[in-house]
């Protein structure tokens, strides 16, 4: 059961022709099965309704005239109809389930595949939880509609028509007399449907309010308690809860009235049969068996009517879900491949920026720093002003194949944006980013990225084994290559110590591994894919133990060898060993050279060095003994000096 607490999710149309047409495109490939299902449904109705007719024959031709021969045959026919109804109903429901599952599978895969093509920018705008709901619950709501909604409504209608038909066939006068209650019952049901819908909606809206309130207050419980608001908030909760109770009682009442009313109406129909039919029967105009059969049909007549009224909610939920799903499917692919893209088996690894200007898309005024990166998290300029939005302002540089370069700059200077542009997670607004002299926009994205190894600061581990995490889904990487890559980056010694070694299953996104170990796995992952270009985001992370720190520093030096490498360096040892350092300040390259050159110049680099790296000379490895980051408690999350940058730009 899904946990929905947004009011807007429970209000919506029950039928929307445009959405329905689009949904039907997913059912269309299974037309034959749908037709089969409808045929089965019609047959099921017929078999199910044979009972009363056979009762009539049994009474009139055997029981009443006391003629036993042939009664067995009628009973056999009765049992046969039962078996047929059982099989048909079972087959019908399975066929429809099958159709529903196939359609759902296709829609889910379409949605997921489309999501794979959407840009990184899209993911920074959308909360992950919302996207998950789209591919899970929303799609299942549609399945329910396919299996229980449309076809079942058709079945109910058909049953109604069939009963009317049989009754008319048996005795049209009695049939018409029985149906005097029909207009009343249809009118009543129609009114009830509106009322039931309204009261059901009222209950849902109120429940959504309660749950939204509960959710918010669980998250903000600290504030409730700090400000001693418990009594006041309880009163508010109670008011919402009471409101829900009132709505619930109203809904209960309308259902509690509806069912007995339909029962009473059906009693009137039976009374008509007893009165009118009974008089006819005593006069010998009709048989007793016919009266009995009529009574049995009249009692069944009202089941599908009650049923129809309840299909409404399924349809409504499905419409709301499909609207949300299609909105994602209609999301344009922002970073698109060139129609006739460049592909290459190997690249030399030359990287060039030509007067690149770049801004993450302007966020809405007043938005806080969650979506963008860097300076917009902090107040001090309106976010909508374009001039403030440029993260890179005319950046130009060229990196030779095999060269290693470190990007150095203050928080929010634009370092990670450079990496985001090389991998083409984003496109620049002005200027060009070239790999091997070709604009990255002319490369096929996946081909381009095959040549680039990216090591992110926040190492993301997938569920699966260590080996899976190094190989990812790249099938051509052999077990041997995985092991050699791990060996190369000093990761194999700790991996082999894990229970199961390379086959050890990663628990809870790697919660059992240390930060340093995860970094080594990320290096192994990059190396196993043997890229010509290596990009490393290595900004300050929490403490790494001494032993692992030495392994990481060594691994970094080795992976850079022979590859074009761009490192956003956190470690002093790294910037001391690269061929060249580019100093980024406020979106521009302001200084470049080797560590020694730059230090001698006494410019921005010198200040940055004192701010970010000098301590490492005094304390060559990060301090240990700080409370583990996972420690629950109010003190665990405070921000220290100079660590204001969130998860990188964007």
């Amino acid at each position, binding site marked *: 059961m899904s946990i929905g607490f947004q009011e807007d999710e429970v209000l919506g149309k029950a039928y929307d022709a445009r959405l329905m047409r689009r949904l039907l495109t997913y059912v269309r490939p299974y037309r034959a099965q749908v037709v089969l299902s409808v045929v089965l449904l019609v047959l099921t109705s017929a078999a199910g309704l044979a009972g009363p007719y056979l009762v009539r024959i049994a009474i009139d031709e*055997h029981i*009443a005239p006391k003629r036993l021969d042939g*009664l067995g045959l009628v009973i056999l026919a009765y049992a046969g109809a039962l*078996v047929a*109804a*059982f099989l048909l*109903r*079972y087959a019908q*429901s*399975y066929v429809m389930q099958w159709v529903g*599952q196939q359609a759902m*599978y296709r829609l889910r895969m379409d949605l*997921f595949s489309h*999501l794979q093509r959407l840009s*990184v920018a899209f*993911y920074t705008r959308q909360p992950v939880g919302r996207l*998950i709901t789209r591919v899970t619950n929303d799609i*299942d709501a549609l399945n329910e509609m396919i299996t229980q909604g449309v076809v079942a409504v058709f079945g109910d209608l058909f049953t109604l028509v069939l009963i009317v038909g049989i009754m008319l066939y048996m005795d049209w006068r009695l049939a018409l007399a029985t149906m005097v209650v029909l207009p009343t019952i249809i009118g009543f049901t129609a009114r009830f449907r509106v009322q039931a819908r309204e009261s059901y909606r009222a209950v849902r809206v109120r429940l959504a309010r309660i*749950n*939204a309130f*509960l*959710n*918010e*207050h*669980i998250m903000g419980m600290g504030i409730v*308690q*700090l*400000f*001693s608001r418990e009594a006041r908030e309880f009163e508010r*909760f109670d008011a919402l*809860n009471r409101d*829900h*109770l009132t709505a*619930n009682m109203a809904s*209960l009442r309308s259902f509690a009235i509806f069912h*007995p009313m339909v029962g*009473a109406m059906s009693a009137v129909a039976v*009374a008509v049969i007893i009165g009118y039919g*009974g008089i006819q029967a*005593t006069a010998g105009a009709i048989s*007793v068996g016919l*009266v009995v059969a009529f009574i049995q049909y009249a009692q069944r007549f009202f089941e599908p009517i009650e049923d129809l009224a309840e299909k409404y909610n399924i349809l409504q939920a499905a419409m709301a879900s499909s609207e949300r799903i299609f909105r994602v499917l209609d999301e344009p692919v922002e970073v698109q491949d060139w129609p006739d893209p460049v592909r290459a088996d190997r690249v030399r690894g030359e990287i060039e920026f030509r007067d690149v200007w770049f801004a993450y898309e302007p966020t809405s005024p*007043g938005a806080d720093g969650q979506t963008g990166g860097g300076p917009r*998290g902090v*107040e*001090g300029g309106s976010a909508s002003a374009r001039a403030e939005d440029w993260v890179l302002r005319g950046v130009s540089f060229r990196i030779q194949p095999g060269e290693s370069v470190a990007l150095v700059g203050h928080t929010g200077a634009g370092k990670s944006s450079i990496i985001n542009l090389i*991998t083409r997670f984003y496109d620049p607004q002005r200027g060009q980013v070239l790999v091997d002299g070709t604009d990255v926009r002319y490369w096929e994205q*996946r081909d381009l990225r095959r040549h*680039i190894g990216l090591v992110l600061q926040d190492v993301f581990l997938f569920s699966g084994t260590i080996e899976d995490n190094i190989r990812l889904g*790249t099938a051509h990487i052999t077990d041997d290559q995985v092991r050699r890559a791990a060996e190369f980056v000093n990761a194999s010694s700790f991996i082999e110590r894990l229970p199961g070694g390379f086959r050890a299953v990663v628990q809870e996104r790697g919660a059992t591994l240390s930060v340093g170990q995860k970094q080594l796995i990320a290096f192994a992952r990059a190396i196993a894919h043997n890229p010509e270009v290596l990009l490393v985001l290595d900004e300050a992370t929490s403490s790494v133990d001494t032993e692992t720190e030495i392994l990481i520093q060594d691994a970094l030096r080795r992976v850079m060898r022979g590859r074009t490498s761009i490192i956003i360096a956190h470690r002093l040892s790294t910037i001391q060993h690269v061929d060249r350092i580019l100093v980024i*300040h406020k979106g521009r390259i302001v200084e470049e050279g080797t560590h020694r050159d730059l230090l001698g110049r006494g410019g921005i680099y010198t*200040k940055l060095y004192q701010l970010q790296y000098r301590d490492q000379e005094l304390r060559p490895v990060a301090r240990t003994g*700080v409370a583990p980051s996972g420690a*629950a408690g109010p*003190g665990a999350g*405070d*921000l*220290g*000096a*100079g660590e204001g940058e969130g998860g990188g730009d964007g």
Partner: protein
Amino acid sequence: MSTRLRAYIFRHRRAYLTGFVLSIISTGVALVNPWVLRQAVDSIRAGAPPRALLLLAAAYVGVALLGGFIRFRWRMRMLGAGRRIEYEIRNDYFAHLQRLHQGFFHHTRTGDLMARGINDLNAVSRLVGAGIMHSFNTVVMFLAASALMMTIDPPLAAVVLIILPLVSLVFVALGRRIHKQYERVQEQFSTISARAQENFSGIRVVKAFAQETAQIETFSAINREYVRRSLRLARTAGALWPAMTFILGLAAAAVLWQGGLAVVAGRITLGQLVQFFGYLMMLSWPMIALGWTTTLFQQAFASMSRLEEIFNTKPAIASPEAAGDERLRGAIEFRNVSLSYNGTPVIRDVTLAIPAGSTVAIVGPTGSGKSTLASLIPRIVDVTAGEVLVDGRDVRAYSLAALRGSIGMVPQEPFLFSDTLEENLAWGAWAGDGHRVREAAEIAQLARDVAEFPLGYQTMVGERGVTLSGGQKQRATIARALARDPAILILDDALSSVDTRTEEEILQGLRRFAATRTSILISHRISTVRHADLIVVLDEGRIVERGTHESLLAAGGLYADLYQKQLLQEALEADESLPS
């Protein structure tokens, strides 16, 4: 059934008892109409006068109306009791959550608490409403109908009573398989969900390593498995209702056959056969309901025990008994305070006296325990060893309302509720302090922003309102704390998203405001703390330096180092000499 659930039901015993009585009456009335049908059929056979038949027809409608009315009262009574219990449990759940300490919320996921409050409560609600109603009615209906059938013709009754319970048996047997297969489907559904989450969260890695196709393939395999399991469930679950209908039909066929023979033999009349059919129909729903309620009860008990887990969690921090409700002056003292989380020390032997009315700043690197130290004052956490005293008394000796009522705290994470700005600012203010709210907004430098909102203080904020910037949120939470007119003001890194100029303005306003109050400022910015009466430098949970800005600079320790870095940082930020 748990004691707690029984207590809820017991509280509504009158509703349940009248419900039971109504259920018995309703059953009694319902059993009349098959008898009317019997009379009608036999009258037709006997060639009765039209008047007799019309009378029977009228009786049929009359009985149905009476039965319908009683059924209505009965359903309202019993289902209503169920809804009321749901209401009570929900209220109690929220009230209990409010009593639980912060630590509980740190190690329990919100989603888990929500699931209990929604899904589990829903299951319990179904039990106390429809579950109890149907199970009682089934018993009454079954006993009464079988007794009546027995009086008509025992052998025929025996046939029915042997076949009908098969309905419940099939329901339970299939139900068990369905339940197992359903769980397998749900398991796979979670796998889909987890896979999707992993993919969306790790989309950068997916794209960087060109793993889209591989990801789609894996996702497709998981989905195919989901389809497979769903269809396997469909094969079992799809048999349930057809099987029920089949067995009920089988009973009808048996009655027709054996009853037909009995009529021919003259043991019963045709009318009695019809009456039998009537009882058979009336018994079909209770038989299905019996199977349904069995599963329902199992689920509801499991759900109730999940709710009980929360109800049985004792609040670790609570008011002592017989605590006074006085207003505090605000002298604070830490005496050899230590605190550990799961054995990891966070605060180590801190001793610090803060006179009433003074301003103390706490600085230190990330994870040094600054916030934790401050959170000991309003008892968000309690010490592991030592004492925290306010006005010379242990904080644990005050009632939580009195203690927290004298404290205005601005936590690191600015959290506002979905309500108007006005309501949010007045959140902790004493009633009738309207002007104080405006004044607080002035000091927190929020008033200017509010003036620009079209709806002013009536602007909706929070999750479903307008999105405030990080700085606006922080300033709103500062105003909220000030509006409380607290004796002790705690600002936990509350100016981090505010630019330096605004920060200066807020600090100036605060200095006036704080003159008569004890203030604790936690910050990593020197500009925030330099004017404090006392600055305390924390490192790894210990106080490593203390003094004024000047004395600490002169000492050349951690504080001086921090100051140097800030100067550099400001220099970098202010560096406008670069080409633009």
